[in-house]
């Protein structure tokens, strides 16, 4: 997963909390599968489970791998079900001007790349992709670059990602694999740890 070229879904709402991403009534599962159909459920469906036609989400390409959302995405509950729902829906990248810390960690642990951009850049992206539903964004994880080169818009920026987490995303190695390999050091640490 070095390069992602995809159209985008736009949700111009600030402070999207994980209760909206996946409502608590869907947290009763004991496995990780199938959460995509419940993504943003209470925004997509009414109380009788009928689709809400005014929710913008479904007007975008169903195969979009990129979600562009308002500031402070993923705040609230630590439920990783939010990341499972996003990944299961097929989204691989979320772009916002700020992410809540726990969500950011959960996203990376599920192969979802959270890209933080400036407020002005986010504003430009939200405005443009709200209108241009077939235009693609090109993301190169190795180069840490995000590029949009189309009519009326040119964006080419570098985003930050910790080198270790980048390595994990590029190689598919998980954090737990890394941690388990450090077992000897952990046991040595415990010998002098006082608390």
């Amino acid at each position, binding site marked *: 997963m070095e390069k992602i070229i995809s159209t985008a879904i736009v949700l111009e*709402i*600030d*402070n999207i*909390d994980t*209760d*909206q991403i996946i*409502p*608590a*009534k869907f*947290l*009763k*599962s*004991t*496995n*990780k599968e199938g959460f995509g159909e419940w993504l943003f459920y*209470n925004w997509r469906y009414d*109380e009788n489970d009928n689709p809400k036609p005014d929710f913008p989400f479904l007007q975008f390409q169903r195969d979009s791998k990129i979600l562009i959302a308002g*500031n*402070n995405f993923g*705040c*609230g*509950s*630590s*439920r*990783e079900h939010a*990341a499972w729902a996003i990944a299961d829906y097929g989204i691989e990248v979320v772009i916002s001007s*700020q*992410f*809540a*810390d*726990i969500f950011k*960690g*959960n996203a990376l*642990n*599920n192969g979802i790349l959270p890209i933080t951009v400036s407020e002005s850049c986010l504003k430009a992206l939200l405005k443009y992709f709200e209108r241009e539903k077939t235009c693609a964004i090109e993301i190169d994880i190795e180069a840490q670059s995000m590029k949009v080169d189309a009519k009326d818009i040119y964006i080419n920026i570098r985003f930050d990602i*910790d*080198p*270790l*987490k980048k390595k994990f995303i590029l190689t598919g190695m*998980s*954090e*737990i694999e*890394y*941690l*388990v390999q*450090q*077992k000897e*050091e*952990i046991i040595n*640490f*415990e010998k002098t*740890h*006082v*608390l």
Partner: protein
Amino acid sequence: MGKTIIDKIWDLHCVKSVTDEVDMLYIDRHFIHEVTSPQAFTGLREKNLSVLRPDRITAVADHNVPTRNQHLPIENELSKKQVDTLVENCQEHSIELFGVGHEKNGIVHVIGPENGLTQPGMTIVCGDSHTSTHGAFGAIAFGIGTSQVEQVLASQCLLLSRPKTMRIEVNGDLGKGVGAKDVVLYIISQLGTEGATGHFIEFSGSVFRNFSMEERMTVCNMSIEMGARGGLIGIDETTIRYVTERATISEEKIAFWNTLHSDDNASFNRSVEFQAKEIQPMVTTGTSPDTGVGISKSVSASNRNSEKGLNYMGLGNDQQMIGTNIDYVFIGSCTNGRIEDLRAVAEIVRGYTKHEDVTVWVVPGSNKVKEQAIKEGLDKVFLAAGFEFREPGCSACLAMNDDKIPSGAVCISTSNRNFEGRQGDGARTILASPMTAAASAINGKITDPRTYLN
């Protein structure tokens, strides 16, 4: 330059720095519950891994349990399966479990402290964002996702970016009828839900110094609602008294705890200060915890509301908060489900009855809280007022069990989140203190608790 208590505790737990940003942090205490742990145990099984330190883990069923008839099997099949799965996983891996009906059962962030498991200087995690509660003890405590639960089960460690630090100082004297919940709702209203993102907070100043441990827990609990990774309060005599009443601690360890404080010249990445006299009883107006206003004000006193949020709440900008109709009152949760909270409610409602159109649920944070309330006769005060006094659990805070607020109904709640649908599909939540919730229950309208205090 001096160090903060946050940096000191972090450094004591840093097994090694892996990159410039990421440290491998050792975790002293791991709490698990039925909703965010099953997939972690499945992950271990799939990878053929074992639990490294079962003695550092405590399990509890709380999120998904009914608050009535806990002696009977859980009716909801999926909830029952989650709770049963927790029991099986704990048996398989020799993890201590406070299951449904156990004398130590209750909400994870209530039972940890009350059983002496939460201690100063520790690193504490749980697959629940309100783990920040335990920061009240001068601990680095934070919520984690299920992948991280699995990592801690297997390695007792996490890979985390080094913390940025923030000091929030509140000085002066609080007015009558203004409590810890009002203080934290006020701070969140000033900073916003993303105001402390990336930071661990130290709450300092005379207001927190004078608070009891339970009041400190209420404040630290809601650190996450300002985006913080966690929030703590320095260790002092109040902390040490509370812990030593609940656990056997060596003199040596107490002496060590007393060395864990921020140096006078400690440098924080950010510092803010507020004055206690500015704080009134607070109520939220919208669908985000940062939309709180002083109870005597109107909705427009918050500039953090969105049109979407106010439409959902059915409130207009010129609506006065006092007098706003309510349908339900929820008293409980890891924010305000402790004995001092129930005492504060009883003090207001003693001799009164609830408004006839209002349903009131009092859900104690744990079996110990429930037993203590009964011992003090608080249950009789609640029943005489027409309140329901339930069995412990997370209940209507997140409405995973049957305790749901109906669509369109307004609930004044002592919990921590007023997000859309948080207390049930279409439910409208107004966050407030136990005193404000109690006074409002009597009138069926948002009511200033000071009118019921002598």
